[in-house]
């Protein structure tokens, strides 16, 4: 399957990388199909719209800088994308990157949740008030390292 990507131009993508977002992503509700691209540069990924090449989000696994991250999301909401057990959850945070790269932030209040079996996803709203829209990744990573030293 060939997909036009913002980062790499036209790209051959495996069918299994295709993720269906029945509700879209907040602000982009009309776009339902994305591909999850391994950026080869861990810990980041691209979530690329299949319909609009300019629409692509940088994702990060929140656990790499916030191992204490928890998903305050109801069972019902997870069931809406067919998730019945925790093992089925793939969770990412969308990264916002300003001109000063080291101030990049991750959105832990609106995580991207994907059912890894059916590859259906959604953006949820985390009801745990500890998690905000802008978490400074580099700062929190540094704080985490200090703790473990």
């Amino acid at each position, binding site marked *: 399957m060939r997909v036009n990507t*913002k*980062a790499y131009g036209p790209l051959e993508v495996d069918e299994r990388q295709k993720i269906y977002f029945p509700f879209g*992503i*907040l*602000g*982009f509700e009309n776009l339902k199909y994305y591909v999850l691209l391994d*950026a080869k*540069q*861990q*810990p*980041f990924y*691209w979530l690329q719209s299949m319909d609009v090449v*300019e*629409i*692509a*989000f*940088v994702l990060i696994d929140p656990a790499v800088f916030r191992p204490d991250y928890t998903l305050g999301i*109801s*069972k*019902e*909401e997870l069931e*809406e994308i067919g998730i019945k057990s925790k093992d089925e959850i793939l969770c990412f945070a*969308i*990264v*916002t*990157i300003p001109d000063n*790269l*080291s101030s*990049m932030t991750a*959105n832990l*209040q*609106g995580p991207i949740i994907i059912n890894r079996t059916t590859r259906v996803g959604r*953006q949820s*709203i985390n009801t745990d008030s500890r998690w905000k*829209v*802008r978490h400074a*990744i*580099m700062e929190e*990573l*540094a704080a985490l*390292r*200090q703790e473990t*030293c």
Partner: protein
Amino acid sequence: MLVLARKVDESIMIGDQIEVSIVDIKGDQVKIGIAAPKNVKVYRKEVYLAIQKENIEAVKAKPDIIPAISTLFKESAKKADDNKD
């Protein structure tokens, strides 16, 4: 928009499963109670708007940005490891 006047302890029904009641009024703040089925998601509107705004900001990421932020991330992780020694 339908506008209804309500007093404390009065409520309105939205359909036959959602009840919105006025719990308390103090100055310019109203406490609202919402009883709804579990599959109905209830959020403060500003949370929705904040996430929407952040998504629109995030989508501006430059196409070649990942190698740069990845290097940054790894250097920071490595520095912390060096400090351990």
